[in-house]
């Protein structure tokens, strides 16, 4: 497949105003999203944010109370689950225990009534793609967790769906296999050119895998952006707190920053109208330690992680310690008086 890097992004899946309630709880509340052809998209949020419900709606296991979902402009909701060109890799893998690896993978192809020889060729090809050649005759219970996941993945991509859904694809794997699988998924996505939608509560998983991420909370989409933009320019207080470590201050926007009653004016950029209630977010790695600065405080704790040191600084008038990330080892010791500074360009103002 030749990827066309400069082509204008084409919408593959259009989600418009989708809502779904379970009794009193709104699992999805007026969600609208565009997923583009060929991209690696992530739905990220804490458990109960509605991301799994959205996934199940895309797969056809659940129907929304309101809203439209289109695939290539055609109504997707009108199709029953078994007729959608959408495949799902289940979190639990949901491999058929009574079938071999090859049987599991061939199952979807047999439903298309392909000739036997073609099915066999395709199964072999996809087993090679996921690195499981030679395991075709084994049963799922004879495989390791990582291998089972590869089978689940192979089973889902062998049908060449328009859309591949992955439910928490890395959560069940141990750390080493995880890193491997992460690279593998990206490679595979390039190779097969299928649009991937991954659902996860793990921001690292989403950040490292996805081209774009939709951050969800309480049934609503908070922000849709590229990983770097989400990190650097969070649009809502939730995103600022959820993605990565952050130092957040509450106050009122002014022309050149944020006015916090107990701390004075903190520098920051963001183009909010003066007087708007706002948050100011500064990343730990953007905070500099020095003799004097914007704020002064007492070092409460220093942890050394090898490449970086994390320093927690207590600032009078702010209830949570300010986190500072410094390169390498640091000379500051708990109890020391330090100044904290940052440049206005590194601090983001977010309306509350």
């Amino acid at each position, binding site marked *: 497949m030749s990827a066309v890097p400069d082509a204008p992004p084409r919408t593959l899946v259009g989600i418009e105003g989708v809502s779904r309630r379970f009794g009193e709880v709104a699992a999805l509340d007026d969600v609208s999203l565009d997923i583009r052809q060929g991209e690696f998209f992530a739905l990220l949020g804490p458990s109960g944010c509605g991301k799994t419900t959205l996934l199940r709606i895309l797969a*056809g296991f659940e129907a929304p109370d309101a809203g439209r979902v289109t695939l290539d402009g055609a109504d997707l909701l009108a199709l029953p689950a*078994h007729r959608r060109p959408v495949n799902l890799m289940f979190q639990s893998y*949901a*491999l058929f*225990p009574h079938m071999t690896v090859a049987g599991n993978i061939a*199952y979807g192809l047999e439903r*298309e009534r392909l000739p036997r020889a073609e099915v066999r060729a395709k199964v072999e090809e996809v087993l090679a793609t996921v690195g499981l050649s030679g395991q075709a005759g084994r049963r799922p219970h004879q495989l390791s967790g990582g291998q089972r996941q590869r089978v689940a993945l192979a089973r889902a991509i062998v049908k060449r769906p328009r859309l591949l859904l992955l439910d928490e694809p890395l959560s069940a794997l141990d750390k080493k296999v995880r890193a491997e699988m992460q690279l593998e998924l990206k490679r595979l996505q390039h190779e097969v050119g299928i649009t991937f939608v991954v659902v996860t509560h793990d921001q690292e998983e989403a950040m490292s895998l996805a081209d774009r991420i939709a951050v969800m909370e309480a049934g609503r989409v908070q922000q849709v952006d590229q990983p770097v933009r989400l990190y650097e320019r969070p649009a809502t207080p939730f995103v600022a707190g959820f993605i990565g470590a952050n130092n957040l201050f509450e106050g009122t926007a002014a022309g050149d920053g944020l006015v916090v009653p107990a701390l004075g004016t903190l520098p920051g950029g963001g183009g909010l109208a003066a007087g708007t209630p706002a948050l100011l977010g500064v990343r730990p790695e953007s905070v500099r330690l020095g003799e004097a600065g914007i704020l002064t405080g007492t070092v409460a704790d220093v942890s050394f992680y090898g490449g970086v040191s994390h320093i927690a600084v207590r600032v009078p008038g702010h209830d949570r310690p300010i986190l500072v990330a410094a390169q390498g080892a640091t000379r500051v010791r708990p109890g020391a008086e330090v100044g904290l500074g940052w440049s206005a360009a590194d601090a983001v103002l977010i309306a509350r």
Partner: protein
Amino acid sequence: MTTEHDIAPPGAAARPTTGRAPRRPRALGGAAARLAFLGPGIGYLIVLLIVPLALIVGYTVFRRGRFGGVVYEATTENFTRLFDPLYFDIVVSSVRTATLTTLIALLIGYPTAYVIAGLPRKWKTIALVAIVLPFWTNFLIRVYAWVILLSGPGLVNETLTGAGLIDEPLQLLYNQGTIVTGLLYSYLPLMVLPLYAAIERLDPQLREASANLGARPVRTFWSVTLPLTLPGVLTGCVFVFVPCLGNFVIPEILGGGRSIMVGNLIRDQFLKARDWPFGSTLALAVIAVLVLLLFVQAWAARINGGAEDRRA
């Protein structure tokens, strides 16, 4: 009475044989404790199952006494007599009746169990209690109730004549259909419960995965749901088939007292004809059929899905 399940208590003989156990005294204490727990059960089985069973097997090779009892003269005539069409046909027709009942129970029980497994928790409990509810009333009373329902001036005939659907009361009692109806009514719960357990345990995501891969609901049933619940199907079939084959109360009450099933035949050999050797031989034949059936069940359960949750 000769058709109690004769399944060996599992694990009775299975002793951990890990060599060079350093804690010998404790292992001995463990054996004593095991014996204390298993003892009553094993004792019960030996006295009330193994001994009568051994007697039955023993009697089959002897002659009957003129006035009942057993004459200890070796003979094979009991077995030759078994293949006398007079008796053999009854054995065959009993197997047929039990098979028919089991199949109908499966056809009714599977959808029932399937629906119950899909109910919300509260309704599940209510439905399961409803399935077991008939067991709260005496078995004989429940079977006699069918006589009242189906007899000439019974409720069914009254209703049908009252509705103008028939002019004459139908002969609903005392035929094979009545026996099957009675057996089915009595043992259907034994089909539904194991099926329910098997279907309930099935991961619903497997069905979703099947649909996701393009299978219509019917295909999902044949390729995923049924194969994975097959052990439950086989258990249910054994649970229904076994008591049906040896039953003599239902054929007696609903079948008009003729020896239509092998259960009645055996009862008559022991109590009326006083031919214990031949009665024993018939009983042994029934046991043989059932043991064969259990082997088939164990084999089928093993080749199919037996591996699934052995290691999670």
